[in-house]
């Protein structure tokens, strides 16, 4: 019960997790940051989530960065090249 009370009074977890996204992207305002920090002090669930958010962010940064591609089989690529060359009349 106390947990619910505290969360409602300051900032619900559903919003704290949204602010974490803004914080993570460096787009959080000072006021929002203060509210989030206060919330994190009293909420172990969101503290735990924030740690995982950082891990996920780190993994995604490495996983989805510049070189990211999906494999396509060579014959499909060749077929595509022929089709485009035909369309553009090259």
């Amino acid at each position, binding site marked *: 019960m106390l947990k619910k009370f505290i969360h409602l009074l300051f900032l619900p977890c559903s919003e704290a997790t949204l602010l974490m996204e803004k914080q993570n992207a460096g787009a959080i305002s000072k006021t929002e940051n203060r509210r989030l920090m206060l919330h994190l002090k009293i909420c172990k669930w969101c503290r735990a989530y924030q740690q995982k958010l950082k891990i996920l962010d780190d993994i995604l940064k490495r996983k989805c960065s510049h070189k990211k591609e999906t494999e396509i089989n060579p014959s499909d690529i060749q077929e595509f090249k022929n089709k485009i060359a035909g369309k553009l009349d*090259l």
Partner: protein
Amino acid sequence: MEKNNVLKSWVEQYSEPLLKRAAYVLSDKDTAKDIVQDVFLAAFSSYESFEGKSKPLTWLMAILNRKVSDFYRKKYQSEPHITLDHFFDETGSWNNNEVLNDWDSSGKETHLLDDDDFNTTLEDCIEDLPSRWKIPLKMYYLQEKKAQEVSQELEISTTNLWKILQRSRLQLRECLDNNWFKKS
């Protein structure tokens, strides 16, 4: 004739990287082919505006980005409806204690990506997201988290981009928890 020869060599050289990138962002090979075809058609018709200041592939990738954004905008015109009911109760508190689960990952994230099984699990979790969220998520990370740019391109508000990232990440956490951390 020079234009035709240049385009021909571009199609030859760059079809592969463009198709692979498009297939990744769109999670669909057929759509990727349609979109890359549009990229080459656009490159052909605006060839004169290519000044050789950037590498051809960079220029083509920028066109690809625009075409992906067009596709996304056309497909998802209405405001996204994002509900968090699955994760939070009516007061906005966590629905359960799952978020506290130990990931025992201090400093191990680097090694996680070396693990083929983990990579597969992660990719499956990402692909399970609806494309409406998946495309912005991928673009956000491909473009080094430039939120402003991604939201402008996709014509969604930054607030909605935060919501999409929040919702996607909540789901990814749950998915990885269930399919990886609880099992290992």
